[in-house]
């Protein structure tokens, strides 16, 4: 039997906060397709993204309503009933929670552990759910989006898990039949292995809607659209582009040959003059993980195995980071 939407008179709105490559767009599409084609609801799905890149910020939106409720607006979801955060690092960005309703739900992907302080900004009445989507995905040989879809359905029984799973299966059956079984394992684990955290939020009422303000406006923007600030992408932090792995440098093994520097796409290797009278005129000091996207090309290029692939545990990159612009960008 179909379970009703929580609110007959308005849309049930979901916002996925993610990084390109984690599959938020695909998850939204599967969910909305299942709702429209298999559950008889009206729905819309879309994402906000730029060009076709991995690693950039992606928001995906699902709007669901009763079959007879017309969908007119095409604007992004401002006051979501649910926010699903695909990467724990996004919790540090207050815009990730913007507009969450007082009785809304936040689902986030993180390993077990105490709730991050940032979650205190959530509404007092909000339900907060943590799931180790990456861990489950690795175990199930699937991807975090299948897990998070499962959790979403587990948290909201009206999103019928069996029906959404059917749609997920169909989505992959054509092009990636090998992924169907692992996706199902991940989905089912996500639907059951989540944890509801108590007494997390402190805020009263709905969270305010956030509109991003440009840094310059028409009274301050340099004429002609020029950017008279060479290289200011150096302030960007690209740590979130990594998907669980990073390169570690063993300086004891390094012969400072410079090969890795030729293949690194992200200029994150830090070099300095060697010690006076030492063996090397130039030395590789370390890696500025602020910019490392974890492609691991440096490891492939290294003739002495001084670079090694390592799982990224919390805090590891911060501990080992060697800043490329010390004194300027801390």
């Amino acid at each position: 039997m179909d379970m009703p939407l929580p609110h007959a008179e308005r849309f049930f709105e979901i916002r996925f906060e993610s990084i390109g490559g984690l599959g938020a767009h695909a998850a939204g599409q599967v969910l909305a397709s299942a709702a429209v084609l298999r559950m008889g609801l009206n729905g819309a799905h879309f994402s906000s993204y730029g060009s076709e890149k991995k690693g950039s910020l992606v928001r995906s939106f699902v709007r669901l309503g009763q079959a007879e409720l017309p969908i007119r607006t095409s604007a992004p979801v401002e006051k979501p009933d649910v926010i699903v955060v695909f990467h724990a690092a996004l919790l540090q960005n207050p815009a990730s929670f913007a507009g969450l309703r007082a009785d809304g739900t936040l689902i986030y992907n993180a390993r077990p552990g105490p709730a991050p302080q940032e979650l205190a900004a959530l509404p007092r009445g909000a339900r907060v759910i943590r799931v180790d989507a990456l861990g489950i995905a690795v175990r199930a040989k699937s991807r975090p989006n299948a897990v998070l879809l499962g959790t979403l359905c587990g948290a909201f029984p009206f999103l019928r898990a069996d029906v959404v799973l059917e749609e997920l299966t169909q989505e992959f059956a054509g092009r990636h039949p090998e992924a169907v079984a692992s996706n199902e394992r991940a989905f089912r684990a996500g639907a059951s292995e989540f944890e509801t955290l108590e007494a997390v939020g402190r805020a009263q009422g709905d969270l305010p809607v956030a509109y991003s303000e440009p840094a310059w406006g028409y009274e301050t923007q340099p004429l002609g659209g020029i950017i008279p600030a060479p290289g200011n992408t150096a302030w960007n932090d690209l740590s979130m582009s990594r998907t669980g792995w990073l390169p570690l440098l063993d300086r004891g093994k390094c012969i400072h040959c410079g090969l890795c520097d030729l293949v690194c796409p992200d200029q994150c290797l830090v070099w300095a003059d060697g010690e006076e009278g030492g063996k090397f005129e130039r030395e590789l000091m370390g890696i500025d993980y602020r910019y490392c996207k974890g492609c691991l090309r440096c490891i492939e290029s290294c003739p002495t195995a001084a670079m090694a692939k390592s799982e990224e545990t919390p805090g590891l990159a911060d501990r080992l980071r060697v800043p490329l612009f010390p004194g300027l960008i801390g």
Partner: protein
Amino acid sequence: MTTLSATLPRTGADVPAPAAARQKLEFRSGNEAAALAARDIGYHLMGYFPITPSTEIAENLSEMQANGEHDIVMVAGDGEHGAAGICYGAALGGGRVLNATSAQGLLYALEQLPVQAGTRVPMVLNVAARSVSGPLDIRGDHSDLYYALNTGWIILCARDPQAVYDLNFAAIRIGEHLDVRLPVLIAYDGFITSHQKRRIQVFDDPEAIAGFLGVRPDFPSPLDTEHPATFGPYMNDPDLINNKVQLSQAMEAARRVIPEVLADLEAMTGRAYPVLDAYRMDDAEVASVLVNSAAETAKETADELRARGERAGVLSPNVLRPFPAEEFRRALRRVKAVTIGDRADSYGAGGGNLSLEVRAAIQVDPANRTRVLSRIYGLGGKDFYAADAEQFFAQAIDAAASGKVSEPFAYHGATPGKPGAGPRPGLPAITAAEVSRPMAHVRRDSATGRLAVELEPLWKMTSVPNRIAPGHGACPGCGTFPVLNQVYRVMQGNIVVLFQTGCAMVVTTGYPATAHRINYIHNLFQNGAATLSGLVEMYHERVRRGELPASRDITFVMVTGDGGMDIGMGSALGAAHRNHPMLILEYDNQGYMNTGAQLSYSTPFGHRTSTSEVGSRLPGKRYHHKDTAQIFSACHLPYVFTASEGYPEDLMRKAAKAQWYAKREGLVYGKVLSFCPLNWRAADDAAQPILQAAVDSCFFPLYEVEHGHTSITYDPEASGRLHPVSDWLGQMGKTRHLVKSENASILQGIQQETDRRWRRLKAMHAHPDL
């Protein structure tokens, strides 16, 4: 539903009265709806060139074609100008023709549009409307669409994916009607509609579709050899005005034909498309006028205002050409104040085109007293929320109450900015001293006249500051940046770069941040070489006049992807033939990767791209890759080279020679094979073995052409490392199908073409004059 008279004028064919058609539910975006309509219409041909956000139409059709779902001939043009020409030629041939584009694509094709209308050759063009460049913006507004207003095309507006699907069918009937015989443009909002999935109904009734469309009338065609005719004479002053009278009459006829066709469509679908959509306008005192998706958002706001007792309504045209002036006059007669929102400005005119035309329409009604507020909103994809609609209505309500318009024209939603605030500052400028230490020593061999290069050790090169800052947004493992790093570190002195549109441009310059630490220019996708050649000449002229010091000693470098060398080929060859002192550096990642991996002419045979899909019927791209280095070699340039980021020392030697020649002798072209893990479907760290195999199979030979002499700089045969192409193709997801047994003959064909080109190159290497 409308009942239809049997006497209604129809297309040239005998079309029976439509009956309700069988339909089925789908969940589709606007682009998908356009592709499904194309499949269901069964066009003869689609000519196109990829451009965000309309590209998905061709991608969807490519995938359907690979699996045998339609037999539309899909022709990827060399640019939108070429694509529009392909469509014009095909439409002259008498079949049904489709194109799709956006933004710059529409402007680059624009020259073809009045010809298509003036010579009365129907076809259909879907425009996923997007902001036009200057600076580049990939998101939606109507600044491209407004350029099409004066071209003589019928223009239909599709407010949501359902309308995109439906109006594509109507477009065929309207354009092919004997009294109209004009091309038809269907405009829908880029990203907002093109990429948003909605519940839609599509036909499940081929007979009903065939009945509705009829067959295309036999307009005069150059394929009709029994009736020879001249298509496209030159026509001067006594005659051209008469041709335009005919065009104008066709537009007037369309005023009658369009409602008839839309009524037929309604009879089939149950969905009505009045020429002017009027929502709660019957007793409205205030209104908003908007085109497409924003109008739908405003309807919800109108409902809320009605609930609060305000008499608010929304007007939005489904047809923009011919302009529904009479319908606007009637709809606005009793409205006290209206806010007209334009998603593009007609700079200096005091309103956007919609606003100006509505003002003109009501101005001829002596009874009209409507106050008009013109607003420019939503530029460059700025979202239009309910709160924006509320402000539009609030301003109209205020004008209605006061009888005065305090601000007749204004931009809505712009940001003034805060004094002293701005983005993060830049890095310190790279000093001349930091980039003046030579990392490559170039000397001319007096015996051969060719250059020899000696590189400093790699570790020493790490002291050269990179001219690109970290923090750019390229995908993990992207090969473009290793290419740039390797080239930059051996180049000495001041460099000014121009990047053509593509990945490297997009990921380094997202406003208000830039990764470039040196002067950088982006102009248009196809016009980089021309632009840079102009800058080069101005530099030398200003030095000659003593306005700039010669000591700046600038090297000019254009960076382009392989896509840029399709659409920009003409401009680049022009610069090459003029032999300006500059370097053109192409990073070849074998496709239009910035827009989602469509085929480029440099995509090799059989490779999977989003417009050369692999399926039960088709095995990927169906023609061999462009040999761009040989094309430039034929321009008799001082220096042409190929290189791979997987052979850094070879690349760096060539880059040093390139700078030497580009400063002293003239134009240099270099093509560098560059890894794309995302769209080659490989692991982020798989660059080295794949690039190695591409070179060792002789698919991508490393060589240079110096003053016309060809030298192979790495010979896999001589070094005993020759591999079959299958060793390369088996490593990438985009080509793995080619090493399966069912594609053995295709693989053999690729090997043969590779071997043939390699033998040819070896012969040139051996010959003293080649």
